[in-house]
Every structure is written in structure tokens, then in C-alpha cells.
């Protein structure tokens, strides 16, 4: 699969010159959700904590960045840092809820956290604008002294650059000892504990890091979409991300972005195919994926082995 990376990167950079502005904005949205999917893959695939709740730090980072954009700073980097730190802080607060549980219990708890955040976002009108959402965030300039990102193309390239940098950092970190530790926790927790590794601390760090990544994605959502509503963080988004991560091969963070792109493209295609029947077709897609994917993965493993 490695030979695919260079052409994919080339296509991603060239895309805004080949596509119309609407498609470019859609692609930017896919990139943003792909970055959230990276954090889902980090937890689900690498650390072994299956999650449906990464929309929660995503939302926290997005609302924090939007508040900053509306009231004080229009510099992209400060908004990204704001998103990352609020996402990480949110994750740090919810660490005791998540890292002591395993397996399906994590799925259940994270789902509850995500849904509660959406409920809170639709009630806390003074900050989030409630169900009406927040609009009118000005386009940021990436750094002090650089021009404002006032076209869809510029915003897309900005998102591409940020996603690329974060993705490279995650891949490099996972190649080193930290990736080994997390995979160890996933595959044989008892043995890790027996050799003296603080499994809980590793998982807590991974969870907070995933929260920071989702927070960065939230800040990018503000830049690319310039509009926020609680519907951006709903349960269906969390499920789409999980499906994208599973399609991409749960242990692969690069695959997570590709899988999410496939799932989002399929969703848009399906809802255009039969207007008003989108959820029904999407549900059918989930059911089909649940039956087809495990067998496909099994065959793939046999071919490799």
C-alpha cells in the first residue's frame, strides 16, 4: 500500500485546482473528519479502547476555537493551540471515566459522553448558540503577518497542511517505543503489567493526546466550515467515524483518513441517489459493512500469512 501514498498526496494538493469551490469545501470537511478519525484509530486500533465519543473533544475544541475567533484572535495557530488544549483538557477531565474500562464498556461510556456533550452544546446557548449554532467566524490568517485565508482553496490547503503535520507526528510517534507500549497494552495487558509498565498511565496519555488531536480538528472545522451546530457532533458522526476507522483497518491511522473519505463519499452519494431516503440507505450500508468487513479482513490476513 505504501506506493499509494505519493500519488494520493499529489492528488490531495492538486485537488483544489481541479475541483470547483463547493467540492473543495467538501474535501476540506472530509480532511477535518479524517483527522478526528485519526484520533479514533489511535484509541480504537492502537490502544485497544474502542470509542464512540471522540466527537466530544472535537466539539469542545471547535467551540473554544470559535469563541476565540469571534472575540479576539484571528490567527490560525492560536486557534489551533486553543482547540488542542481545550480538547486535551476535556479528555483529561474524562480520563477516570474511560481508561479503567475495557472493550464494550468503553464503547458504552464514550457514547454516553459524546451524547451528553451534544445535549450540553444545544442547551448552553450563551457560548454555543444552542441548536441555531454559531456563525460569522472570520477567516483566520495562518500566522502573524500572513494573508487571510479568504478562499475555499486557501482554507483547504491550510487544513491539508495542518492534517499532514499532525498525521506525520502521530505516525512517527507510533513507530517509536510509545507505539510499542500502546500495542502491548492492547494485545496483552497482563503481561505489560507484569513487566512493570503503568498501563493506566499509558492509556491516559493516549486518551489525552487523542483528545488534543480531535480538538485541533475542531479548530479546523471552524476555519473550513465557518459555521458550527450541535448536529456536527452527533451520534451519527461518531458512528460514521468508527465505520471509517474499521474500513481503513483499525490499527492504521493513515487508513483511518482513507476509510473516512470512503464512508463520507458513500454517504453523500447515497443521499443524492434517493433524496429523503439517505438514513435508510446509510443504515443498510452499516449492516452490509458489518457482514462483509470481518470476512474480508480474515481473507486478507490469510493472503498475507
Amino acid at each position, binding site marked *: 500500500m505504501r506506493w499509494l501514498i505519493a500519488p494520493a498526496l499529489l492528488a490531495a494538493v492538486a485537488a483544489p485546482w481541479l475541483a470547483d469551490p463547493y467540492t473543495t469545501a467538501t474535501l476540506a470537511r472530509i480532511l477535518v473528519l479524517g483527522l478526528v478519525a485519526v484520533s479514533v484509530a489511535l484509541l480504537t486500533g492502537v490502544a485497544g479502547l474502542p470509542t464512540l465519543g471522540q466527537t466530544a473533544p472535537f466539539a469542545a475544541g471547535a467551540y473554544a476555537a470559535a469563541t476565540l475567533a469571534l472575540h479576539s484572535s484571528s490567527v490560525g495557530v492560536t486557534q489551533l493551540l486553543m482547540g488542542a488544549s481545550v480538547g486535551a483538557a476535556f479528555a483529561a477531565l474524562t480520563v477516570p471515566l474511560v481508561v479503567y474500562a475495557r472493550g464494550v464498556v468503553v464503547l458504552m*461510556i464514550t457514547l454516553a459522553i459524546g451524547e*451528553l456533550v451534544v445535549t450540553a452544546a444545544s442547551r448552553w446557548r450563551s457560548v454555543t448558540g444552542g441548536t441555531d449554532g454559531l456563525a460569522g467566524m472570520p477567516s483566520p490568517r495562518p500566522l502573524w503577518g500572513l494573508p487571510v485565508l479568504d478562499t475555499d482553496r486557501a482554507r483547504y490547503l491550510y487544513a491539508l497542511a495542518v492534517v499532514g503535520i499532525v498525521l506525520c507526528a502521530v505516525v512517527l510517534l507510533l513507530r517509536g517505543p510509545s507505539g510499542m507500549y500502546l500495542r502491548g497494552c492492547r494485545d496483552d495487558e497482563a503481561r505489560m503489567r507484569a513487566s512493570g509498565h503503568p498501563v493506566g498511565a499509558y492509556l491516559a496519555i493516549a486518551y489525552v493526546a487523542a483528545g488534543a488531536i480531535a480538538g485541533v480538528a475542531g479548530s479546523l472545522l471552524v476555519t473550513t466550515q465557518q459555521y458550527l451546530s450541535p448536529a456536527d457532533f452527533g451520534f451519527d458522526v461518531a*458512528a460514521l467515524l468508527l465505520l471509517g476507522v474499521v474500513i481503513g483497518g483499525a490499527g492504521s491511522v493513515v487508513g483511518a483518513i482513507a476509510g473516512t473519505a470512503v464512508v463520507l463519499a458513500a454517504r453523500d452519494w447515497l443521499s443524492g441517489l434517493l433524496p429523503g431516503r439517505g438514513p435508510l440507505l446509510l443504515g443498510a450500508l452499516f*449492516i452490509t459493512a458489518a457482514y462483509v468487513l470481518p470476512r474480508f479482513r480474515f481473507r486478507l490476513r490469510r493472503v498475507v500469512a
Partner: protein
Amino acid sequence: MNRVDAYLIPALDGVAYGLLLFVVAAGLVLSFGVAGILNLAHGTLYAIGAYVAATLSDGSWLALLLALVAGVAATTAGGAALSGMLAPVPRGDHLTQALLTFGVALAGGSVLVMAFGAENLPVRVPATVDRPVDLAGHAYAGYRLVFIAVAAALALALHAVVTRTRAGMLVRAALDDPDMVACLGVSPARVRLGVLAASGALAGTAGVLGAPIIGPGPGTAATVLLLSLVVVVLGGHSGRSSVAGTLLAALAVGEIQTLGVALAPTAAPFLLFAAMAAVLAARSHGLIRRWSPA
């Protein structure tokens, strides 16, 4: 005295709400604890029961009884069908189970909206209890009092079934050690079928009887699923008896959703968070023991 008095009605509402959540969450605990399946379509089963109640109800007791029979039959069949759909998925594959049940919830919700429209439907309660009852100087909806009595009886019956009957013994054994139950010759496939059908029946019962409290509409499934998930998270770890723990948690969530909203209108979702955080943080060790990876 007057201050306390003003909160009597929301507090009583909280009991009704909590008992309703208890019946739904008991179904979720069954499928989750015994069969190890996180059924994301559980809220949809409730919604089916509620839509049946809204369609059949005409203000007579006979219609309510009819709705109960039809609704429970439909959701029991729904649970059994889910069990059949989940059969090819390996037991430990939680991700695939979650994707599958979410797909069913999404498609099922869409079909319900197609069949019944996108509005919240009104539900008529039997005429004899469709009037306010005088309660220590306050008017209170008669149906809710009846509901509280019925749901409390249901909770007691459930407790008796779990502690006194052979089926209940099997459920407790499967909660404790599913592999040993399989070794003793009880087919895991049959356990899953029975558990998901029973879980569907509980969701349907709650849906039909609770329709006047949480009515049928496009958002019903998600609301019910979320609140019963919180109940399971809170109640699954408090104390030895699963039924009592779930009941306590359900009543607490019910009070937060009604009394909490009356006392502090904006803080209710945060209160749910705080309750979850407190319980889980306090019981993190018990959590590891209880839900250790099988």
C-alpha cells in the same frame, strides 16, 4: 414548607420517569451483561412500542391492552430478529456488533419516520385515568400515578424472576461466567436469542406504557438510548444486585431529568456527567473486577 411543596410535583414526575427508564435499562442490562452485546437499536425498540401505543390508543382500557399485546409482540420479534442478525458475528467482536446494531437503528428510525411522519404523535390514555388527581393540594396527572404503580410492580416482578426462577438463575450465571454456562451445556446461541427477545419485550412494554411520558417522535430512540445507557453505566457497578442497582440509578437519572431541570434548568446535562464521573471514579477498581475482559 412552601418551597418544598413546589418541588413535590417534579419529584413525583422524576419517580415516574425513573421507573420508565428502569424498565428500558433493564432490557439493555440483559443484552449487555448476559450476551455481551451493546444494542444500539434498543431505543428504536422502545420507539416501536410507543408508536404502536399512539396508533391504537383511543381512550379505552381495551385499546391499551391491545396496544400492550401488539407492541410487546412486535418488539419481542424485533429482538429475536436482531439476535438472528447478530448470529454470524463472533461474540467478542464488539465493533462489528456496534456497527450492525447502529445500522439497524438508523434504518429502523428512517422506516418509522416514513410510516408515521416526522412529527411527535399524541398518545391518548384511558379516559378513567385521564384527569388530574388531588395530591396534598396539588393536581397530578392520574395516568402517571397508575404508571408508577404498574412500573413498580414490574420492577418487583423482575426482581423475583431474576432471584427466584430457573431462567433468572441462568441469567445470573451467564452474567458471572458465560464460558462456564456454555460448558454446562446451555447453548450460547439460545441464551442470546432468549436474552435479546426478553430485552425487546422490556423495551416494548416500556414503550407502550411510557408513551404518554416519553412520546413517539423522530428523536425518541436517541433520547431513550442515551438515558438508559447512563442508567446502565451508573447502575451496573453499584452493589451486588444488578436489579436494585439499576433501579437506584434509574430513579437518580429520573430525578436529575425532572427535579434537576426544575431546580437548575441549564445544568441538567452537566449533572448527568457529574453523576457518571463520581460513580465511575469511585468504583474504578470494582469496575475492573466486574467488567474485566472476558
